[in-house]
C-alpha cells in the first residue's frame, strides 16, 4: 500500500483507504468464525503442546514442572532396577499396528476403490451422478452405525457365522470380532468412499483418446493401464491414499468397537493415557506426535492436489 501511495498520490491515498477498510471489513466478518475455532478447536491444541512438556500429576493432570520426559517415554522406558534404557516395546507395537493397519487399509481401499472409480467415470453422464450418489451416501452416514453394521455381520452370533453353521461349513463360530482383521475390515469399509471420490475426480478428467492411441501403437491392456492410465491419474491416487491413511492412523471408534480394546491403535492408546488417572503428559506428547505425522502427510496431499490442477 505504501508503494501505491508514492506512485499516484491523489487517487491512491483514497484507494488505499478503501482497501484498508475492505481488509478490515473482511477480518471483522471472519472474526466470529475465528473466535469459535480458537475456543473449540485450535486454541486447546496449544494446551496439549504445553502439557506434553510437563510432569504427570499424581492423580491424572499435570504438575507444572518442565521436562522432556513425556517425549522420551514415547519411545523408551527406563528399567526400575538398574536404570538402563530400553525401547518401549509395548508402545512400539501399538505404533507398528497403527501404521501397518493404516497402510493395509489404504492398499485394500485402493485395490477395490480404483476399479470402482474407473467404472463410475466410464459411465454416461446421467448414470455417473447416480453411481456417485451411491458412494456418497455411506460417506455421510454415521461412522458408528457403519461400524456397528460390520460388527453385527461378523460377530460370533452374527449373520456370517450363523449362516455358515446352518449350511454346515463350520461347527463352531469363527472368532472374527476383536481381531486385527476385524479392525482392518472395518476401516477399509468405512474409509472406502474417501478413496473412491478423489480417484473418480482424477479419472473423470482423463482423456480416453489416449487409450485409443496406446492401442493403435500395439500396447496391450496391461501396458495401456500401467503406462498411460496410472501415471496420469497418479495425483488422484496420492490424494485418495492420504485421505484414507490420515483418518486410519487417527482412528478411534473402529478399533474400539471391532478391536474391543485388545487390538489398540494409537488413538485408543492416547485415550487410555487420559482415561484412568494415567499419564497426561504422555498422552499429550502422543497426540502431538500423531498431529505431526498427519501434518506431514497432508503436505504431500496439498502437493498432489496442486499437481492435479496444473496437469488437468
Amino acid at each position, binding site marked *: 500500500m505504501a508503494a501505491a501511495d508514492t506512485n499516484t498520490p491523489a487517487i491512491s491515498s483514497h484507494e488505499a483507504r478503501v482497501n484498508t477498510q475492505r*481488509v478490515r471489513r473482511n477480518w471483522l466478518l471472519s472474526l466470529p468464525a475465528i473466535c469459535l475455532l*480458537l475456543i*473449540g478447536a485450535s486454541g486447546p491444541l496449544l494446551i496439549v503442546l504445553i502439557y506434553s512438556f510437563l510432569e504427570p500429576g499424581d492423580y491424572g493432570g499435570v504438575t507444572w514442572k518442565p521436562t522432556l520426559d513425556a517425549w522420551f517415554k514415547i519411545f523408551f522406558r527406563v528399567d526400575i532396577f538398574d536404570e538402563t534404557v530400553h525401547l518401549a516395546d509395548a508402545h512400539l507395537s501399538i505404533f507398528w499396528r497403527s501404521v501397518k493397519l493404516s497402510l493395509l487399509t489404504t492398499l485394500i481401499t485402493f485395490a477395490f476403490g480404483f476399479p470402482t472409480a474407473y467404472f463410475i467415470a466410464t459411465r454416461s453422464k446421467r448414470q455417473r451422478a447416480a453411481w456417485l450418489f451411491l458412494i456418497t451416501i455411506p460417506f455421510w*452416514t454415521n461412522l458408528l452405525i457403519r461400524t456397528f453394521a460390520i460388527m453385527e455381520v461378523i460377530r460370533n452370533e*452374527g449373520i456370517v457365522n*450363523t449362516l455358515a453353521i446352518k449350511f454346515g461349513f463350520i461347527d463352531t463360530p469363527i472368532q472374527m470380532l476383536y481381531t486385527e482383521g476385524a479392525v482392518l475390515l472395518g476401516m477399509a469399509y468405512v474409509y472406502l468412499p474417501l478413496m473412491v471420490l478423489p480417484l473418480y475426480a482424477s479419472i473423470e478428467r482423463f482423456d480416453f483418446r489416449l487409450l485409443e492411441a496406446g492401442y493403435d501403437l500395439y500396447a496391450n491392456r496391461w501396458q495401456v493401464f500401467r503406462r498411460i492410465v496410472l501415471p496420469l491419474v497418479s495425483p488422484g491416487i496420492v490424494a485418495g491414499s492420504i485421505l484414507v491413511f490420515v483418518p486410519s492412523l487417527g482412528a478411534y471408534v473402529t478399533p474400539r468397537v471391532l478391536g474391543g480394546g485388545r487390538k489398540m491403535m494409537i488413538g485408543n492408546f492416547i485415550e487410555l493415557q487420559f482415561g484412568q488417572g494415567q499419564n497426561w503428559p504422555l498422552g499429550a506428547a502422543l*497426540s502431538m506426535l500423531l498431529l505431526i505425522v498427519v501434518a506431514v502427510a497432508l503436505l504431500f496431499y496439498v502437493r498432489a492436489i496442486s499437481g492435479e490442477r496444473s496437469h488437468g
Partner: protein
Amino acid sequence: MAEANRAAKKGKTFSVKTMPGFTTVAMICFIVLYAPIVTLVIYSFNAGNSIAFWEGFSIRWYFIALENTVVQEAALRSLIIATAAAAIASTVATMAAIATTRTRPFRGRTAIYLMINQPLMVPEIVTAVALLIFFASIKVATGYTGLGYLIIAHAAFCVPFAYLPIRARLESMDSTLEAAAADLYATPWQAFRRITLPLLAPGIIAGAMLAFVISLDDVIITEFVKSAGQDTLPTYMLGQLRRAITPEVNAISTALLVLTLVLLSVFFVLTRDRRANPD
C-alpha cells in the same frame, strides 16, 4: 490393434475404455458397501431378541426404543446440540464466506482458510483430548457443566462443513445485482438483506444441513467433552456395546439413518438447483 483383433476373434466388440474385471470389482464394492447397512436395517424389524435369527417382522423394537427414557433424553440432546451447532456454524460460516469469497486476496486470507479448515485436518482424537483438558479446567473454574461445551465444540468442527456449500454458492452468484442495488442507493445493509441473503439462502440452508448431519454423527469429541449424564444418541449406542446387543440399537441406528438420508436428499436438491439454473 492386437487387443482389438483378439477381441474380434472372440466375437466380442472391443471397447477402448473397459478394463477386464473392473466392472465386477465395482459391483462387489457396491454390494459390500450396502449389505451390512441393509442387514442392520432388516434386523431392526426382527420380532425376536437376536440380531442373527429372524423370528418374523415386527416394529416392537422401535416402540421399546421410543419408550426408553434414556434414549428419549439422548435423542432430544442430540437434536438440541445439532440444531444449535448448525445454527451457530452456518451463521459464522456465512460471514466468513462473504469475507473470503469474491474479494481480492488480502493479507491473512490463507490464514483464515487454514483456520476454518483446521477441523478437517487435525485427527478428531487429538481435538477431543485437547477439548477435554481445556473444558475440564473451565468446568472446575466456573462450575458450569451444561450443554454449552458440547454446543461450542460441535459448532467449531461443523464450521468447515457449513462453509464449503455457502462459499460454492457465493462463487457462482452474479455480483451485478448487488452492484445494481448499490447504484439505486441501497445501503450496504439493504443490499445484503434484500439481494445477497435471499440469493445465498439455499447455500446457507445446505451448509446448515451438512453441519446438522455432521453434529448428529459425532462420537469421539462428544464422548470426551460430555459431562456425566450428557449422552447423545451415538455415545449412548457406544455405551451399549458392553451389554448384549438387541435390535433396539438397530432400531435407533435405522432412525438416525433415515434422518440423515432425508437431510442429505434435501442438501443434494438444494445444491443441484444451483447447477441447473445458475443465477
